[in-house]
């Protein structure tokens, strides 16, 4: 079931954001539910330049996050981490081979949220996507619920 939800979300982005993906590097957050918890899917729309990214997602009070699969879909040369601390999810990763995510929508991973009642304010902040020279190329993000 979880795989179906994730696949459906990715399918949505793949089908619905093709034009955007060709011109924008940005963080894509999408929320689905899986029984008692919600699944926050993290994807990156890349023009083929994104070599690193970082952002934070503040969560409503009382919400808990399991970040163990946060970067699970990234290419193996990407290193980084996710942490749920001080009421926010912090996500950071970079290619240790100075590679880049392929053009299009790239799966990053999933964060499981528990206790989420109102997702209307869910948004990424401090967004930075950068190229393999360490230069920022975008600070865009989009949340789909």
């Amino acid at each position, binding site marked *: 079931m979880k795989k179906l939800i994730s696949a459906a979300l990715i399918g949505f982005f793949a089908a619905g954001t093709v034009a955007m993906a060709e011109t924008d590097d940005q963080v894509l957050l999408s929320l689905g539910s899986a029984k008692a918890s919600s699944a926050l899917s993290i994807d990156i729309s890349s023009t083929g330049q994104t070599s690193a990214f*970082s952002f*934070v997602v503040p969560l409503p009070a009382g919400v808990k996050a399991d970040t163990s699969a946060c970067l699970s879909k990234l290419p193996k040369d990407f290193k980084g981490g996710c942490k749920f601390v001080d009421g926010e999810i912090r996500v950071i990763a*970079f290619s240790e081979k100075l590679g880049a995510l392929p053009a299009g929508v790239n799966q990053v991973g999933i964060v499981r949220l528990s206790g989420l009642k109102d997702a209307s304010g869910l948004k990424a902040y401090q967004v930075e996507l950068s190229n*393999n020279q*360490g*230069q*920022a190329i975008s600070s865009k993000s989009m949340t789909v619920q």
Partner: protein
Amino acid sequence: MNSKKVLLGAAVSAVLLFAAPMASACALSAWTATNGTIIAGQPNDATPVSRLSGLCAARAAAIGDFVTDASPTGETTYQARFYYYTGNVTGARNVFEGRSAAGASNLPIRVQHNGTSLIFNTNGSATTATAPVSANRWYAVELAWAAGAGTGSLAITVTDAGTDTPSFTQTIGSVNNGSDTIEEARLGFISGTGTGAANFDAFDSRRTTTPGRLCRGDANNSGTRTGADATAVINEFVNGVLATGQPDANGNGQVVGSDASSIITAFLNTGSACP
């Protein structure tokens, strides 16, 4: 060094770096004077010079290798910050002096390195402050001095450049230095004994405001710590493209993969904002 930024208002106005504005040789030309054989260099020179910030730093290898800043004039308050790479030295040598007109016989500020500690003294007080340091590491040294007849002071902060939190703070107070003024600063191996080399970087002095520390791990000099900084570290290590900010996030004198890891950890612990 050929970069000297003049600050307006109440600042002493010496931000003395060691970097050239373009990818050319490093220089010491913005300092008032140089003594001995102190050099400015960068990590990819034939004789590599480790730097903490920007492209260049200064390296002293013998007693008498130092630079002089004559910007201060009759200063009754003085704040300075510099980064010091301890190297592997023996003996004790003065590495920073805030000097009055009396010269070496009356030092309002003296910072000495003996290989294991930085030792701080100020004229007008018998109190000595001793900050333990390790070999081959960068440290931020922050000083705030004020003159006063029994009310003078020297506030000292030492921070391992691989951390965001000071490792040593002490204020020498009740200093009887009402007639002292600072007329000159010296940085390097000014006097003393022993062997070994050490590096100096990012000197900043002001009359009243605090220079503060540079953003550790802000490798691309953007003012934040993000994934781009980790990439800049890897780009320097792999391709030799020197990062323009502070890529040596763990302060060990080398820009390597562990610095990228330090940046990742800093982001996860505190977010992208510099402390």
